[in-house]
């Protein structure tokens, strides 16, 4: 007898939501407990910025390098490529050779961009 009744558990996304909230509670609760239990003896040297003993020279953020930003933007663009590849890989059997040629063109175009990145030395960190 084909099982006409289809048993459905709770929504698959609920455990993730519950654990994220549990993580929040654990994180705040534990640091709260240690705040409550720990001794409170602030003294001036403890409250200064930690510069391994050197006097604090200037505020934290004034000079920066463009490299961090460039890595992050190239990460997005190659991440989009990864997502489209995952999409193709699940329907690999259905699409067959046609899909391979199609994604081949996709990869070729993006590797031109990647070669340009190498040539311009955008990711050289020295």
């Amino acid at each position, binding site marked *: 007898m084909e099982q006409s009744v289809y048993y*459905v558990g709770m929504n698959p996304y609920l455990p993730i939501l519950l654990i994220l909230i*549990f993580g929040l509670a654990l994180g705040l609760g534990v*640091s709260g407990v*240690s705040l409550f239990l*720990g001794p409170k003896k602030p003294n001036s040297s403890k409250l200064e*910025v*930690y510069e391994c003993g050197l006097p604090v020279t200037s505020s*934290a953020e004034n000079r920066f390098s463009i490299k961090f930003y460039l890595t992050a933007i190239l990460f997005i663009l190659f991440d989009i490529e990864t997502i489209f590849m995952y999409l193709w890989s699940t329907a*690999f059997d259905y699409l067959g050779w046609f899909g391979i040629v199609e994604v081949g063109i996709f*990869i070729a175009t993006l590797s031109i961009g990647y070669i340009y990145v190498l040539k311009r030395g955008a990711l050289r960190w020295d």
Partner: protein
Amino acid sequence: MIEISFTQIISTILLMLLGIAVGAQVAPIMSWVERRQCAIIQRRLGPNRVGFFQFRLLGLGQPIADAIKLLFKEDFVPPYVHKAFYVLAPVVPVATGLAVTVAIPWGSHVVVNNQIINLQAVNLNSGFLLIFALSSLAVYGVTLAGWSSNNKYSLLGGLRASAQMVSYEVAMGLSIIPLVFIWGTLDLQTMITKQSEILWGFLPNWGFIHAPISFFVFIVTIFAETNRLPFDLAESEGELVAGFLTEYGAMRWSLFFLGEYSMMFVMCVLTVSLFFGGYELPWLSQHYLLEILNPQVGEVLARWILLPLGIIVLLTKVILLMWIFVQVRFTIPRFRYDQLMKLGWIYLLPIALINLIITAIVTAIVKFH
């Protein structure tokens, strides 16, 4: 006809709690394992004093003693930090580290009052991509910690660590794609049942045999993703005075490591499930064992016997892999930052792409002719 069955709900909650319990236990046990392992390599003893009453227990009491000590240390919030984000930063790795444990495939399925209970807390249609999604969120814990401590060292450490985690995520994503079209699904459990067959007569049909290059690329990216040595430049003493963790004190400091170890554990489970046949014994597949047990014991009880066996097999494989993690930590020196970024972008990414194209063509030839 759709019916809400409470056995399914209770079993999902139980699996979720199992995931959290195992994920949260990894941090203390691994801290003990690492100190013992480091000691053995350097021909000394490592923690073996702390135990309960007069039993030494090989120093297994050490992590518990550390946890209590961390709780009682003075935990103060320095005045110059951005308070809201300083307190919130450790929550991100803990939440993502524990949330990832829902995707662990503990076994295939069990029958409870004639309903099939899937032994994976969350069985999404997008399969193991949930692990990548949550691990890509872990970057914010590092960035927030670095920025909110308002200190030159921690800001630079935080930016460096997040740039490193970000750039290795691309290679991680690309390296797994060959496996998806070899097995044809994103779902870990169907992958594992396919890996339990026999390949060419004697070999177990493991993913490692089908795509060895993507295994090596994936292992390297896992080291970088969880900031493990030789990639833990952001927290290294020599470089940036403990990097983004400079301003963090007792319990908040250890919360970062709780999340990091739990993420490392789940990444090891993922590697084992993708490449080494998860909860299946190499030659004794659960299907074969079921055929033996079925006549004696009946299908329902047989599956209940196979459940602990599957979990033990999975955990032994993961413990072996984590032992390699710790062994690598104490043998390979730390990378310089530009070498690290060059390895991520200029070496791993092309290898992953070329490996993907070759495997695509080979699988197409095998599958379609």
